[in-house]
């Protein structure tokens, strides 16, 4: 972390840092795994600079990365609305929203480059929403008192990703980036203590291949799918980060998981994923449950319609508990409040749901205005639930959405393995214990376009003397490749009775019940034992049909689940050690008499970075203590 006042750190860093000269850039190979906002932006920008980039994704096109699904928007400190926004305020909101568990210097830099992102995206042809004067429009999001969120209907992630994908395509055409689609990174190769490459599996032929890079960048997204049901894409996984962890890259704050308050409730056992209803809906929707248990009961039985319940019999619990922020409290607060009401017996639908009601907004602004703002979300809701949200209030419930935890990185986004970098949701860096809405897209693009392309050069400046390796001749590559082959053989050899999904679903239940929204020491310990047992069962009873040398989705899922079955335990261990409640991590033992989270800054104001010690041994804890110089640490208060 560069010294000096916070507002000058990044400028100072850029001014003083080593760069690689253009002729040498061509001699340097960089592996970028992932083509989401982080990966596509990084691969394109590094290609433009003249590096030789090898880019990988598991889907059939880079455009399909999970980032495509982000709906609501992206933050920036432009202050186009003249409502008092600034770089400092965005920085402040992000640190506060993260409950003072993020590194100050990184977050300030994020806020600083946020404005460049919007400029860059507009130049790429991202059709952001505009007002009648032709200028960019903004909306507000949870955890902020200003309107700083840029959006493209309910498809912001899609449009930003297509922008980055365009830039990537241009570099592919120019020959600077080689794209490998339907290719999964299976493991990391470390040579003499430095990351030097990866082993991949071709998802069509099953072939295992070695790839060399002077540096390796992981942009592989989050691990929310450890819960089986989440808003993540089906293929989202934690394996790349986890494999790096097993090779020595520390894993930070694994238990910091975000539960999103506005998702469509679960319909039944066959459910394969959960659908998010963008948080932007909370701008105009009001959240409520019945005030009386009897009414909730009647609604659940279908004897009473929510429309029949008069105002005074409704409990707008967020507006009641948090008058200042109301329905716009941060996600963790909104999610816990919904769970609290449902656990207390006031839930609607299956009992695990609350209302998100647009009747007031439709009355105030007209149906057309609401349709213009949220039309595609309303349509999506109707297609899934089969009721019309213009007429009946939506039903929502919290679901796993985002992982703040991830690979530990320093100011340069480098992990504890030299030459291995981690960007986007895969790293832990900017969101502390809770991420604010519209900040993940900002972070992915900040890392990919504006931070990594600078910081990676300090490392690479030292590497120009290293010749490209012929991987066949490097024993480390051959060993790791053999290990991968052994893992696959071992999975096929089990020949058990249970499908991968059935075990994954069971893991999901354990995680949701024991490592979910309200955690207790007791429950976590129990959870750890259950995960260990399930992991054993997996290795004794999983059934992988099909062949190794062909397209085999069951094998792909099994490899990812094998890692989830270890990562889940690490998450529980982290949650168990953190004897406080902060952000998305809520321990029932640590709360105020009113039920609000009780942070313990004296003992826990640090990043917990875990070091791998073997699968069956507890990981070793390292603490990076956090200090705040530019910001006064306060209790989060949204009242």
């Amino acid at each position, binding site marked *: 972390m560069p010294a000096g006042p916070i507002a000058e750190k990044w400028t100072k860093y850029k001014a003083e840092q080593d760069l690689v000269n253009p002729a040498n850039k061509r001699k340097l190979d960089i592996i970028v795994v992932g083509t989401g906002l982080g990966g596509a932006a990084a691969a394109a*920008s590094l290609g433009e600079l003249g590096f030789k980039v090898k880019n990988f994704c598991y*889907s*059939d*096109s880079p*455009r*399909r990365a*999970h980032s*495509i*699904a982000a709906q609501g928007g992206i933050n920036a400190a*432009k202050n186009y609305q003249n409502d008092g926004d600034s770089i400092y305020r965005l920085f402040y909101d992000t640190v506060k929203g993260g409950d003072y568990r993020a590194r100050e210097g990184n977050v300030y830099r994020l806020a600083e480059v946020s404005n*460049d992102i919007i*400029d*860059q*995206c*507009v*130049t*790429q*042809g991202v*059709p*952001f929403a*505009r*007002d*009648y004067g*032709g*200028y*960019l429009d903004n909306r507000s999001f949870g955890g902020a008192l200003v309107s700083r969120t840029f959006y*493209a209907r309910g*498809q912001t*992630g*899609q449009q930003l990703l297509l922008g980055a*994908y*365009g830039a990537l*395509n*241009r570099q592919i055409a120019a020959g600077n980036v080689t*794209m490998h689609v339907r290719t999964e990174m299976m493991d990391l190769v470390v040579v003499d203590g430095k990351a030097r490459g990866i082993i991949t599996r071709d998802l069509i032929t099953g072939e295992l291949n070695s790839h060399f890079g002077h540096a390796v960048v992981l942009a592989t997204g989050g691990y929310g799918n450890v819960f089986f049901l989440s808003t993540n*894409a*089906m293929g989202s996984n934690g394996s790349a980060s986890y494999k790096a962890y097993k090779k020595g890259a520390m894993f930070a704050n694994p238990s910091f998981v975000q539960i999103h308050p506005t998702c469509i409730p679960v*319909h*039944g056992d*066959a*459910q*394969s*994923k959960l659908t*998010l209803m963008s948080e932007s809906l909370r701008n105009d929707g009001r959240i409520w449950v019945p005030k009386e248990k009897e009414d909730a009961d009647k609604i659940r039985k279908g004897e009473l319609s929510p429309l029949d319940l008069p105002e005074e019999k409704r409990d707008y619990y967020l507006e009641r508990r948090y008058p200042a922020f109301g329905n716009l409290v941060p996600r963790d607060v909104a999610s816990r409040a919904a769970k609290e009401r449902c656990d207390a017996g006031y839930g609607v639908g299956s009992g695990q749901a609350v209302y998100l009601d647009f009747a007031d907004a439709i009355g105030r602004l007209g149906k057309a205005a609401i349709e213009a703002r949220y039309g595609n979300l309303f349509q*999506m809701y109707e*297609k*899934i639930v*089969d009721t019309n949200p213009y007429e009946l209030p939506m039903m929502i419930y919290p679901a796993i959405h985002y992982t703040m935890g991830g690979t530990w990185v320093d100011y340069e986004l480098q992990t504890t393995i030299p030459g291995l970098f981690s960007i986007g949701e895969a790293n832990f860096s900017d969101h502390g214990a809770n991420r604010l809405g519209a900040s993940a897209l900002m972070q992915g693009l900040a890392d990919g*376009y*504006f931070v990594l392309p600078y910081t990676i050069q300090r490392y690479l400046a030292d590497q120009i003397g290293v010749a490209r390796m012929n991987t066949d001749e490097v024993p480390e590559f051959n060993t790791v490749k053999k290990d991968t082959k052994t893992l696959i053989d071992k999975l096929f050899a089990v020949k058990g009775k249970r*499908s991968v999904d*059935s075990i994954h679903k069971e893991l999901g239940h354990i995680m949701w019940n024991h490592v979910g929204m309200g955690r207790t020491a007791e429950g976590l310990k129990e959870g750890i034992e259950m995960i260990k047992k399930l992991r054993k069962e997996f290795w004794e009873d999983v*059934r*992988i*049909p*099909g062949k190794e040398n*062909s*397209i085999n*989705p*069951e094998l792909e899922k099994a490899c990812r689940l094998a890692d989830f079955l270890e990562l889940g335990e690490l998450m529980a261990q982290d949650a168990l050690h953190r004897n406080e409640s902060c952000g998305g991590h809520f321990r029932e033992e640590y709360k105020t008499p009113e039920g609000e989270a009780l942070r313990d800054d004296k003992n826990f104001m640090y990043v917990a970075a875990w070091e791998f010690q073997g699968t069956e041994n507890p990981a070793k804890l390292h603490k990076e203590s956090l200090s705040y110089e530019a910001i006064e640490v306060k209790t989060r208060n949204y009242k």
Partner: protein
Amino acid sequence: MDLTLKVWRQENAKAKGKFEKYQIKNISPDSSFLEMIDALNEQLIQDDKDPVAKEPVAFDHDCREGICGMCSLYINGRAHGPDEEITTCQLHMRKFKDGDTIVIEPWRANGFPVIKDLMVDRQAFDKILQSGGFISANTGNAPDANAIPIGKDKAEEAMDAASCIGCGACVATCKNSSAMLFVASKVSQLALLPQGKHESVKRAHAMIAKMDELGFGHCTNTGACEVECPKGISLDHIARLNREFLAANLMP
């Protein structure tokens, strides 16, 4: 719901494929179509009569919310099945009746070879976009985002065009296997914006040339693509492409 499924099975790109018939029971009408195939696959994996587990049906999918464009499937003769403006992952079983027989096939088009069962190779779409479907602007070159105002109408129309998810239903539906709707949506989006205008003629020609080279057919204006496009991409974009870039035969 109890259903009969007739599913296209094909070992790999070179093998000959055929339909297999499966019975499946107790599907909830609230399940999505892909969750129904999940259930079929679970059944195939669990099939005890077969000691070597039967191979599940391979199909593409990822986001399961209609935005990544990864899912496909020709269902009872229609791309993305019997519902309007929807992808297969958003299709729900309540659109079918108990006892129905459902025929499930992959996209079929020259440009999209089948690689296994219901999976096809759509890399041709990436190649078309690599030939020019972008604005040439290096990272860091951008002026302030509000420096060039863009009329709301133009921005909205560009957004309509930009909604394409690259699924390929247009190609699969077209009797000529033309990728014109896909190409036109990108050409339109970028040509409507002041930032993309400068390269628009060159871009249009390069993308069309690439499309031809990759074995997609010509557009004969039958309009089937528009009907099956899950994102409602309008034929107007093809008209604009013809009018503004091809008819005048402006060479780059």
